[in-house]
């Protein structure tokens, strides 16, 4: 059974570059269409959190270090 | 003693700078003030070389000279170029091994030193030619005492060079007027 992952964003620091979007094997990341963060960017968000496998590929590609990744034990 | 100015000139490899340095060591060990100033430039070997030594009881002002009390000409071009610097009554040392003509000056004491021949034949070591000249300078001009040279040789020729001291001492005494 696939691991269950959980993502934590520091969305106020997100610059909306979408490098994490390209990295995600489950295609569950997307810029938030509605929210604009204090830097003026649409920050990253998860569209289907249940599908996250905790692979940390998104965090690996995030230049600004805004993503922490956890898995259920 | 007023400042004595010695000018040594020749071409590189003749020991011109060393003659000046040995005089400087001698003056220092006699407790005098001294400066040694070389010409310097890109020609390391075979080009012209000269140095100035000033010896005095007082602190020495300029280490450069426009006139000198002692001129040592180790080759012809140096003699031609610098003999006018010598003060009247000064000492002119001519390296007779390579200079086969007389200087123009008649108002100075001229000493002909065939250093290479003396070094080869009397000392038996061609490399001591400059020491033959140094001995001539010291004994004829009196800018430093000959007796101090034992200390100079002991201080400057150490290690591998120590074994050369006897030949050098012999060379200092080899020339006779």
């Amino acid at each position, binding site marked *: 059974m696939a691991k269950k992952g959980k993502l934590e964003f520091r969305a106020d620091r997100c610059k909306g570059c979408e490098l994490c979007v390209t990295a995600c094997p489950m295609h569950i990341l997307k810029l938030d269409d509605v929210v604009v963060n204090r830097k003026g960017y649409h920050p990253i968000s998860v569209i289907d959190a249940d599908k996250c496998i905790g692979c940390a590929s998104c965090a690996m590609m995030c230049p600004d270090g805004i993503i922490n990744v956890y898995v259920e034990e | 003693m007023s400042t004595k100015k010695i000018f040594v000139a020749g071409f590189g490899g003749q020991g011109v700078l060393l003659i000046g340095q040995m005089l*400087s060591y001698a003056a*220092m060990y006699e407790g005098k003030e*001294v*400066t*040694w*100033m070389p010409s*310097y*430039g*890109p020609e390391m070997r075979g080009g012209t070389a000269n140095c100035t030594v000033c010896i005095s009881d007082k602190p020495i*002002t300029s280490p450069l000279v426009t006139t000198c009390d002692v001129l040592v000409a180790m080759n012809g071009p140096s003699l031609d170029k610098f003999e006018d610097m010598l003060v009247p009554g000064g000492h002119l040392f001519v390296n007779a091994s390579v200079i086969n003509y007389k200087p123009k000056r008649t108002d100075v004491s001229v000493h002909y030193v065939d250093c290479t021949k003396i070094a080869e034949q009397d000392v038996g070591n061609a490399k001591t030619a400059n020491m033959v000249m140094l001995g001539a300078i010291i004994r004829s001009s009196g800018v430093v005492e000959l007796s101090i040279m034992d200390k100079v040789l002991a201080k400057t020729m150490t290690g591998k060079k120590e074994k050369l001291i006897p030949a050098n001492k012999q060379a200092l005494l080899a020339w006779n007027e």
Partner: protein
Amino acid sequence: MAEKKLMKGNEAFAAAAINAGCRYYFGYPITPQSEIPEYMSRELKKVGGSFIQAESELGAINMAYGAAAAGGRVLITSSSPGIALMQESIGLICSVQLPLVIMDVMRGGPGIGSIQPGQADYNQVTRGGSNGDYHTMVYAPNSIQEAIDMIGKAYDVADEYRNPVIIAADGMLGQMMEPVVMPEPKAPLTEEEIPAVKPYCLTGHKFKRDRHAINSVWLKQELLEDYINAFWPKYEKAERELPEWESRDLDGAEVVFVSYGSTSRVVLEAMDLLAQEGIKTGLIRPKTLWPFPVKAFEEIGAATKHIISVELSQGQMMMDVKLAVEGKWPVSLINRVGGMLLDPYEVVDRTKKIMEVK
């Protein structure tokens, strides 16, 4: 007292630095100072120090920047065009406030110039050729012994002021030999002592303090202005406390010469010659070129009619002399340039010509 040794200027400068606790030398050969890197390559390893023959003067000054930031006592030496190459980093090292001793064995310029002695780096060393507001302290010895003593002092001043200090010598001092005495040697800081004695240096923060970022870029100009204004008082302190000079025979002198470094020795000889002709002359010899010894000029008396700057440059120091005398006396110039030297008789002749001008 230690025994007198006959030493060539350049070797004595290097020995004096090691004696003062310098253990790091980075250099690039250039006439007339190449005996310094040669000496350092032989001697530093004997005392546990490091020598690098750098790829260029740019490399050398920046190795020095790194070593000084890391807490080492460093010597940098070069001659005029090499110092010009280093200017960018000299200004930078001033901006980040690190101690460093720099020796300029000056030769004739501008450009690649000549390899004979010169003093035309006066502006380069006292004004600096880098960008921004900064000063470097400049000492100008006129004998090998004085250079040795000044090098020792320069390290202490550099540490106290956290600023580069330049020793402005010239090819004559570098190439000549004189009997000298070395002062008592000083031990360098050990790697363990550096954080306590020089807490601003880079040693790794060991989680005992915040990380240091030694840095001269300021993207907020307000902060940079505050920073400059905060360190600037040290230069005002230097102007009060550091000027040094030698005065001779100012009392009753009709002519006062101002001259520094090896040229001042030529002037001393010219003064003797002038005295033989009944002409009374005096000398002010700046030992520090920055800060310039302005106070020395207060000693000049009513008998003085002429002040003459004697230098191997086109009146670079004369400008400081004019500022110091504030228009009270006419200031003239006796000089040679491009690596040509003055001789005492030329100084005598030109002095007499200047005295004819009413």
